[in-house]
Protein backbone atom coordinates (compact mmCIF):
# COMPACT_ATOMS: atom_id res chain seq x y z
CA UNK A 1 0.00 0.00 0.00
CA UNK A 2 3.02 2.34 -0.10
CA UNK A 3 2.04 3.68 -3.47
CA UNK A 4 -1.30 5.00 -2.19
CA UNK A 5 -1.11 8.78 -2.40
CA UNK A 6 -2.16 10.61 0.75
CA UNK A 7 -4.09 13.84 0.28
CA UNK A 8 -4.81 16.28 3.09
CA UNK A 9 -7.41 18.90 2.17
CA UNK A 10 -7.58 21.99 4.36
CA UNK A 11 -11.34 22.48 4.31
CA UNK A 12 -14.55 21.12 2.82
CA UNK A 13 -14.23 23.08 -0.40
CA UNK A 14 -10.71 21.80 -0.95
CA UNK A 15 -11.82 18.25 -0.10
CA UNK A 16 -14.69 18.31 -2.59
CA UNK A 17 -12.40 19.66 -5.33
CA UNK A 18 -9.71 17.04 -4.66
CA UNK A 19 -12.19 14.16 -4.41
CA UNK A 20 -13.81 15.10 -7.72
CA UNK A 21 -10.50 15.52 -9.54
CA UNK A 22 -8.55 12.51 -8.21
CA UNK A 23 -9.28 9.17 -9.87
CA UNK A 24 -9.58 6.03 -7.73
CA UNK A 25 -9.60 8.00 -4.50
CA UNK A 26 -11.26 7.00 -1.20
CA UNK A 27 -12.00 9.22 1.79
CA UNK A 28 -10.10 8.26 4.93
CA UNK A 29 -11.67 9.24 8.26
CA UNK A 30 -10.72 7.24 11.39
CA UNK A 31 -9.33 4.42 9.27
CA UNK A 32 -10.85 1.70 11.48
CA UNK A 33 -12.38 0.00 8.44
CA UNK A 34 -10.28 1.34 5.59
CA UNK A 35 -6.72 1.06 6.96
CA UNK A 36 -7.06 -2.66 7.65
CA UNK A 37 -8.34 -3.30 4.13
CA UNK A 38 -5.72 -1.05 2.52
CA UNK A 39 -2.92 -2.80 4.34
CA UNK A 40 -4.27 -6.26 3.57
CA UNK A 41 -4.99 -5.24 -0.04
CA UNK A 42 -8.62 -6.33 0.31
CA UNK A 43 -10.33 -3.02 -0.52
CA UNK A 44 -11.87 -3.35 -3.97
CA UNK A 45 -11.28 -1.61 -6.25
CA UNK A 46 -7.86 -0.84 -4.73
CA UNK A 47 -7.63 2.94 -4.22
CA UNK A 48 -4.68 4.83 -5.63
CA UNK A 49 -5.21 7.74 -3.27
CA UNK A 50 -6.79 8.48 0.09
CA UNK A 51 -8.37 11.80 0.99
CA UNK A 52 -7.92 12.50 4.69
CA UNK A 53 -11.20 13.94 5.95
CA UNK A 54 -10.43 13.38 9.66
CA UNK A 55 -9.41 16.97 10.39
CA UNK A 56 -11.74 18.90 8.09
CA UNK A 57 -13.37 21.48 10.39
CA UNK A 58 -16.78 21.34 8.65
CA UNK A 59 -16.95 17.56 9.24
CA UNK A 60 -16.32 17.81 12.99
CA UNK A 61 -18.53 18.51 15.97
CA UNK A 62 -22.04 17.95 17.28
CA UNK A 63 -24.42 20.92 17.18
CA UNK A 64 -28.06 21.98 16.97
CA UNK A 65 -29.18 23.55 13.74
CA UNK A 66 -32.57 24.16 12.11
CA UNK A 67 -34.49 22.04 14.61
CA UNK A 68 -32.11 19.13 14.07
CA UNK A 69 -29.10 17.67 15.82
CA UNK A 70 -26.19 17.75 13.38
CA UNK A 71 -23.23 15.44 13.75
CA UNK A 72 -20.17 15.99 11.58
CA UNK A 73 -19.36 13.01 9.37
CA UNK A 74 -15.82 12.84 10.78
CA UNK A 75 -16.75 13.33 14.43
CA UNK A 76 -15.59 10.37 16.53
CA UNK A 77 -17.80 8.15 18.65
CA UNK A 78 -15.93 9.53 21.66
CA UNK A 79 -16.93 13.02 20.55
CA UNK A 80 -20.59 11.93 20.49
CA UNK A 81 -20.30 10.21 23.87
CA UNK A 82 -18.87 13.44 25.33
CA UNK A 83 -21.43 15.72 23.70
CA UNK A 84 -24.14 17.17 25.93
CA UNK A 85 -26.36 17.82 22.91
CA UNK A 86 -26.02 14.23 21.73
CA UNK A 87 -26.99 12.95 25.20
CA UNK A 88 -30.00 15.23 25.30
CA UNK A 89 -31.29 14.83 21.74
CA UNK A 90 -30.00 11.47 20.50
CA UNK A 91 -29.38 9.25 23.53
CA UNK A 92 -29.88 6.10 21.45
CA UNK A 93 -26.99 7.18 19.21
CA UNK A 94 -24.81 7.68 22.27
CA UNK A 95 -25.83 4.24 23.51
CA UNK A 96 -24.84 2.73 20.15
CA UNK A 97 -21.52 4.63 20.12
CA UNK A 98 -20.68 3.19 23.54
CA UNK A 99 -21.02 -0.36 22.21
CA UNK A 100 -18.66 0.15 19.27
CA UNK A 101 -15.27 -1.50 19.70
CA UNK A 102 -13.33 -0.29 22.72
CA UNK A 103 -11.64 3.04 23.49
CA UNK A 104 -9.20 2.81 20.58
CA UNK A 105 -12.02 2.34 18.07
CA UNK A 106 -14.37 4.86 19.70
CA UNK A 107 -11.60 7.47 19.54
CA UNK A 108 -11.29 7.09 15.75
CA UNK A 109 -14.50 5.59 14.33
CA UNK A 110 -16.96 8.01 12.71
CA UNK A 111 -20.55 8.11 11.46
CA UNK A 112 -19.38 8.92 7.93
CA UNK A 113 -17.27 5.77 7.99
CA UNK A 114 -20.04 3.61 9.45
CA UNK A 115 -22.48 4.88 6.80
CA UNK A 116 -20.17 4.61 3.78
CA UNK A 117 -18.89 1.21 4.88
CA UNK A 118 -22.57 0.16 5.01
CA UNK A 119 -22.01 -3.10 6.84
CA UNK A 120 -25.33 -4.79 7.68
CA UNK A 121 -23.89 -5.02 11.20
CA UNK A 122 -23.05 -1.29 11.47
CA UNK A 123 -24.33 -0.41 14.92
CA UNK A 124 -25.32 3.20 14.34
CA UNK A 125 -27.28 2.42 11.19
CA UNK A 126 -30.53 1.08 12.75
CA UNK A 127 -30.42 4.03 15.16
CA UNK A 128 -30.19 6.49 12.27
CA UNK A 129 -33.07 4.65 10.56
CA UNK A 130 -35.25 4.85 13.67
CA UNK A 131 -34.55 8.58 14.02
CA UNK A 132 -35.36 9.24 10.31
CA UNK A 133 -31.92 10.81 10.02
CA UNK A 134 -30.81 12.68 6.93
CA UNK A 135 -27.39 12.12 5.38
CA UNK A 136 -26.05 15.48 4.22
CA UNK A 137 -23.46 15.26 1.45
CA UNK A 138 -21.49 17.78 -0.57
CA UNK A 139 -24.40 18.05 -2.99
CA UNK A 140 -27.72 16.93 -1.45
CA UNK A 141 -29.59 15.54 1.54
CA UNK A 142 -30.37 11.81 1.41
CA UNK A 143 -33.15 10.45 3.66
CA UNK A 144 -31.64 7.52 5.54
CA UNK A 145 -34.32 5.08 4.34
CA UNK A 146 -33.03 5.66 0.79
CA UNK A 147 -29.35 5.35 1.67
CA UNK A 148 -28.75 1.59 1.76
CA UNK A 149 -29.26 0.12 -1.69
CA UNK A 150 -27.83 -3.40 -1.36
CA UNK A 151 -25.17 -5.43 0.38
CA UNK A 152 -22.54 -2.83 1.28
CA UNK A 153 -23.93 -0.53 -1.38
CA UNK A 154 -25.14 3.00 -0.80
CA UNK A 155 -26.87 5.78 -2.72
CA UNK A 156 -23.59 7.76 -2.73
CA UNK A 157 -22.10 8.73 -6.07
CA UNK A 158 -18.46 7.66 -6.54
CA UNK A 159 -17.14 11.16 -5.75
CA UNK A 160 -19.76 12.14 -3.17
CA UNK A 161 -18.60 13.07 0.31
CA UNK A 162 -20.71 12.70 3.45
CA UNK A 163 -20.56 15.97 5.36
CA UNK A 164 -22.92 15.44 8.29
CA UNK A 165 -25.87 13.52 9.64
CA UNK A 166 -28.97 15.34 10.85
CA UNK A 167 -31.38 13.91 13.39
CA UNK A 168 -34.80 15.45 14.07
CA UNK A 169 -35.31 16.57 17.66
CA UNK A 170 -37.89 15.13 20.03
CA UNK A 171 -37.85 11.46 19.03
CA UNK A 172 -37.72 8.71 21.62
CA UNK A 173 -35.69 5.79 20.37
CA UNK A 174 -34.73 2.67 22.33
CA UNK A 175 -31.55 0.77 21.41
CA UNK A 176 -30.30 -2.72 22.05
CA UNK A 177 -27.33 -4.68 20.69
CA UNK A 178 -26.83 -8.38 21.17
CA UNK A 179 -23.25 -9.54 20.66
CA UNK A 180 -20.96 -12.14 22.11
CA UNK A 181 -19.29 -9.88 24.67
CA UNK A 182 -19.34 -6.31 25.84
CA UNK A 183 -16.40 -4.92 23.86
CA UNK A 184 -15.11 -5.38 20.30
CA UNK A 185 -18.01 -7.67 19.32
CA UNK A 186 -19.74 -7.62 15.96
CA UNK A 187 -23.49 -7.53 16.44
CA UNK A 188 -25.61 -10.64 16.12
CA UNK A 189 -28.69 -8.47 16.22
CA UNK A 190 -28.83 -4.71 16.72
CA UNK A 191 -32.14 -2.86 16.98
CA UNK A 192 -33.55 0.63 17.39
CA UNK A 193 -37.25 1.25 18.00
CA UNK A 194 -39.43 4.34 18.10
CA UNK A 195 -43.11 4.11 19.16
CA UNK A 196 -44.29 7.33 17.61
CA UNK A 197 -43.79 7.45 14.73
CA UNK A 198 -43.60 3.66 14.56
CA UNK A 199 -40.07 2.67 13.56
CA UNK A 200 -38.48 -0.74 13.95
CA UNK A 201 -34.95 -0.76 12.50
CA UNK A 202 -32.68 -3.78 12.67
CA UNK A 203 -29.11 -4.63 11.74
CA UNK A 204 -27.33 -7.95 11.10
CA UNK A 205 -30.57 -9.66 10.00
CA UNK A 206 -30.47 -9.00 6.24
CA UNK A 207 -28.06 -7.82 3.55
CA UNK A 208 -28.78 -4.23 4.57
CA UNK A 209 -29.78 -2.52 7.81
CA UNK A 210 -33.56 -2.54 7.40
CA UNK A 211 -36.86 -1.10 8.54
CA UNK A 212 -39.27 -3.88 9.52
CA UNK A 213 -42.41 -2.88 7.58
CA UNK A 214 -44.85 -5.44 9.02
CA UNK A 215 -43.72 -4.84 12.58
CA UNK A 216 -44.01 -1.09 12.06
CA UNK A 217 -47.57 -1.46 10.70
CA UNK A 218 -48.58 -3.43 13.79
CA UNK A 219 -46.86 -0.94 16.06
CA UNK A 220 -48.67 1.94 14.36
CA UNK A 221 -51.92 0.20 15.45
CA UNK A 222 -50.46 0.03 18.96
CA UNK A 223 -50.31 -3.76 18.64
CA UNK A 224 -46.98 -4.55 20.29
CA UNK A 225 -47.59 -8.30 20.43
CA UNK A 226 -48.50 -8.24 16.73
CA UNK A 227 -45.26 -6.40 15.97
CA UNK A 228 -43.25 -9.05 17.77
CA UNK A 229 -44.99 -11.74 15.76
CA UNK A 230 -44.65 -9.92 12.44
CA UNK A 231 -40.99 -9.03 12.73
CA UNK A 232 -39.94 -12.62 12.05
CA UNK A 233 -41.26 -12.20 8.49
CA UNK A 234 -39.64 -8.81 7.98
CA UNK A 235 -36.09 -10.02 8.35
CA UNK A 236 -33.90 -12.13 6.06
CA UNK A 237 -31.27 -13.61 8.35
CA UNK A 238 -28.52 -15.95 7.17
CA UNK A 239 -26.50 -18.74 8.71
CA UNK A 240 -22.90 -17.61 9.16
CA UNK A 241 -19.91 -18.05 11.44
CA UNK A 242 -21.53 -15.92 14.12
CA UNK A 243 -25.07 -17.36 14.32
CA UNK A 244 -27.78 -19.39 12.63
CA UNK A 245 -30.80 -17.82 10.92
CA UNK A 246 -33.21 -19.47 13.40
CA UNK A 247 -31.25 -18.05 16.34
CA UNK A 248 -31.27 -14.57 14.80
CA UNK A 249 -35.06 -14.77 14.29
CA UNK A 250 -35.67 -15.79 17.89
CA UNK A 251 -33.31 -13.15 19.24
CA UNK A 252 -34.85 -10.46 17.04
CA UNK A 253 -38.30 -11.26 18.42
CA UNK A 254 -37.04 -11.32 21.99
CA UNK A 255 -35.24 -8.01 21.61
CA UNK A 256 -38.28 -6.34 20.07
CA UNK A 257 -40.50 -7.74 22.84
CA UNK A 258 -38.13 -6.32 25.40
CA UNK A 259 -37.83 -2.91 23.76
CA UNK A 260 -41.64 -2.65 23.48
CA UNK A 261 -42.25 -4.11 26.93
CA UNK A 262 -44.65 -6.49 25.17
CA UNK A 263 -46.00 -9.43 27.16
CA UNK A 264 -43.98 -12.64 26.87
CA UNK A 265 -45.05 -15.35 24.45
CA UNK A 266 -48.06 -17.30 25.83
Amino acid at each position, binding site marked *: *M*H*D*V*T*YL*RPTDLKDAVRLYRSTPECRP*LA*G*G*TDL*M*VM*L*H*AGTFRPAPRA*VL*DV*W*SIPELKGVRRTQGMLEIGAAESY*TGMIRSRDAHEHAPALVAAARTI*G*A*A*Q*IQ*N*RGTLGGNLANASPAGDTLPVLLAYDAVVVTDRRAIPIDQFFTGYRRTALQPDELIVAVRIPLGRHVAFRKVGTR*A*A*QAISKVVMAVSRSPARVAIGSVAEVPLRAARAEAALARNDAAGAVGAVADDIRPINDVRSTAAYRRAVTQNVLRELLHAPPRP
Partner: protein
Amino acid sequence: MTVRFTLNGVPVSIESSGSRRLLDVLREDLGKTGTKEGCGEGECGACSVLIDGEVVDSCLVAVGQVEGRNVLTVEGLAAPNGELSRLQQAFIEHGAAQCGICTPGMLLAAHVLLQRATQPTGDQVREALAGNLCRCTGYTKIIEAVLSCTT
Protein backbone atom coordinates in the same frame (compact mmCIF):
# COMPACT_ATOMS: atom_id res chain seq x y z
CA MET B 1 5.85 13.94 1.78
CA THR B 2 7.27 15.50 4.93
CA VAL B 3 5.33 14.81 8.11
CA ARG B 4 6.13 16.81 11.23
CA PHE B 5 4.84 15.90 14.66
CA THR B 6 5.90 15.69 18.27
CA LEU B 7 7.04 12.28 19.48
CA ASN B 8 7.38 11.82 23.21
CA GLY B 9 7.84 15.56 23.60
CA VAL B 10 10.47 15.92 20.88
CA PRO B 11 9.69 17.45 17.46
CA VAL B 12 10.34 14.99 14.62
CA SER B 13 10.20 15.34 10.86
CA ILE B 14 10.11 12.36 8.54
CA GLU B 15 9.98 11.74 4.82
CA SER B 16 7.39 9.07 4.03
CA SER B 17 4.36 8.25 2.01
CA GLY B 18 1.56 9.73 4.11
CA SER B 19 -0.56 6.59 3.75
CA ARG B 20 1.89 4.33 5.60
CA ARG B 21 0.73 3.05 8.97
CA LEU B 22 1.92 5.12 11.92
CA LEU B 23 2.90 1.77 13.48
CA ASP B 24 5.42 1.05 10.70
CA VAL B 25 6.89 4.55 10.72
CA LEU B 26 7.37 4.42 14.50
CA ARG B 27 9.08 1.05 14.37
CA GLU B 28 11.00 1.21 11.09
CA ASP B 29 11.84 4.88 10.61
CA LEU B 30 11.99 6.17 14.17
CA GLY B 31 13.33 3.12 16.02
CA LYS B 32 10.46 3.12 18.52
CA THR B 33 10.07 -0.66 18.63
CA GLY B 34 8.27 -0.54 21.99
CA THR B 35 5.08 -0.23 19.93
CA LYS B 36 4.17 -3.80 18.93
CA GLU B 37 2.20 -5.29 16.09
CA GLY B 38 -0.17 -8.06 17.11
CA CYS B 39 -3.09 -8.42 14.71
CA GLY B 40 -2.70 -5.47 12.37
CA GLU B 41 -6.51 -5.21 12.37
CA GLY B 42 -7.44 -3.02 15.32
CA GLU B 43 -8.46 -5.97 17.47
CA CYS B 44 -5.59 -6.46 19.92
CA GLY B 45 -4.33 -3.03 21.01
CA ALA B 46 -0.64 -4.09 21.03
CA CYS B 47 0.08 -1.12 18.75
CA SER B 48 -1.69 1.41 21.02
CA VAL B 49 -0.20 4.89 21.20
CA LEU B 50 -1.62 8.19 22.39
CA ILE B 51 -2.43 10.93 19.89
CA ASP B 52 -3.13 14.22 21.66
CA GLY B 53 -3.78 12.22 24.81
CA GLU B 54 -6.30 9.77 23.30
CA VAL B 55 -5.48 6.09 22.94
CA VAL B 56 -5.58 4.80 19.35
CA ASP B 57 -4.37 1.76 17.44
CA SER B 58 -1.36 2.91 15.41
CA CYS B 59 -1.99 0.15 12.87
CA LEU B 60 -5.18 2.03 11.87
CA VAL B 61 -3.63 5.50 11.56
CA ALA B 62 -2.01 6.80 8.37
CA VAL B 63 1.14 8.69 9.30
CA GLY B 64 -0.03 11.75 7.37
CA GLN B 65 -2.84 12.01 9.91
CA VAL B 66 -0.47 12.86 12.78
CA GLU B 67 0.89 16.04 11.16
CA GLY B 68 1.16 18.64 13.92
CA ARG B 69 -0.04 16.28 16.62
CA ASN B 70 1.44 14.96 19.86
CA VAL B 71 2.25 11.25 19.79
CA LEU B 72 3.19 9.37 22.93
CA THR B 73 4.64 5.86 22.76
CA VAL B 74 5.64 3.60 25.63
CA GLU B 75 9.18 4.98 25.37
CA GLY B 76 7.78 8.33 26.52
CA LEU B 77 6.27 7.03 29.77
CA ALA B 78 9.52 6.81 31.74
CA ALA B 79 11.33 9.93 32.90
CA PRO B 80 14.12 11.25 30.62
CA ASN B 81 16.71 9.74 32.98
CA GLY B 82 15.13 6.32 32.45
CA GLU B 83 13.33 6.14 35.76
CA LEU B 84 10.14 4.12 35.25
CA SER B 85 6.74 5.64 35.92
CA ARG B 86 4.72 4.48 38.91
CA LEU B 87 2.48 2.48 36.57
CA GLN B 88 5.43 0.75 34.87
CA GLN B 89 6.92 -0.07 38.27
CA ALA B 90 3.57 -1.50 39.37
CA PHE B 91 3.46 -3.79 36.32
CA ILE B 92 6.84 -5.21 37.36
CA GLU B 93 5.87 -5.60 41.01
CA HIS B 94 2.56 -7.32 40.21
CA GLY B 95 3.98 -9.63 37.56
CA ALA B 96 1.63 -8.02 35.05
CA ALA B 97 3.85 -8.84 32.06
CA GLN B 98 4.88 -12.22 30.75
CA CYS B 99 5.81 -12.22 27.06
CA GLY B 100 5.36 -8.44 27.08
CA ILE B 101 3.79 -8.03 23.65
CA CYS B 102 0.62 -6.49 25.07
CA THR B 103 2.40 -4.49 27.78
CA PRO B 104 3.19 -1.21 25.95
CA GLY B 105 -0.43 -0.90 24.80
CA MET B 106 -1.78 -1.85 28.24
CA LEU B 107 0.45 0.77 29.85
CA LEU B 108 -0.69 3.54 27.51
CA ALA B 109 -4.41 2.67 27.81
CA ALA B 110 -4.07 2.52 31.60
CA HIS B 111 -2.03 5.74 31.63
CA VAL B 112 -4.95 7.61 29.99
CA LEU B 113 -7.39 6.21 32.54
CA LEU B 114 -5.21 7.17 35.51
CA GLN B 115 -4.86 10.70 34.17
CA ARG B 116 -8.65 11.07 34.03
CA ALA B 117 -9.74 9.16 37.11
CA THR B 118 -7.59 9.11 40.21
CA GLN B 119 -9.77 6.44 41.85
CA PRO B 120 -10.97 4.15 39.05
CA THR B 121 -12.97 1.07 39.97
CA GLY B 122 -12.10 -2.41 38.75
CA ASP B 123 -14.89 -2.11 36.19
CA GLN B 124 -13.50 1.17 34.91
CA VAL B 125 -10.08 -0.42 34.55
CA ARG B 126 -11.58 -3.37 32.66
CA GLU B 127 -13.48 -1.01 30.37
CA ALA B 128 -10.41 1.13 29.72
CA LEU B 129 -8.39 -1.97 28.81
CA ALA B 130 -11.13 -3.71 26.80
CA GLY B 131 -9.33 -2.93 23.54
CA ASN B 132 -6.09 -4.53 24.74
CA LEU B 133 -5.80 -8.29 24.54
CA CYS B 134 -3.32 -10.37 26.53
CA ARG B 135 -2.66 -14.01 25.78
CA CYS B 136 -0.52 -14.68 28.83
CA THR B 137 -1.50 -13.14 32.15
CA GLY B 138 -5.24 -13.71 32.37
CA TYR B 139 -5.69 -9.95 33.07
CA THR B 140 -6.00 -10.24 36.87
CA LYS B 141 -2.45 -9.12 37.55
CA ILE B 142 -2.70 -6.34 34.98
CA ILE B 143 -5.86 -4.97 36.62
CA GLU B 144 -4.30 -5.27 40.07
CA ALA B 145 -1.23 -3.36 38.88
CA VAL B 146 -3.38 -0.51 37.56
CA LEU B 147 -5.55 -0.41 40.69
CA SER B 148 -2.43 -0.22 42.86
CA CYS B 149 -1.64 3.15 41.26
CA THR B 150 -4.79 4.86 42.48
CA THR B 151 -4.05 7.68 44.89
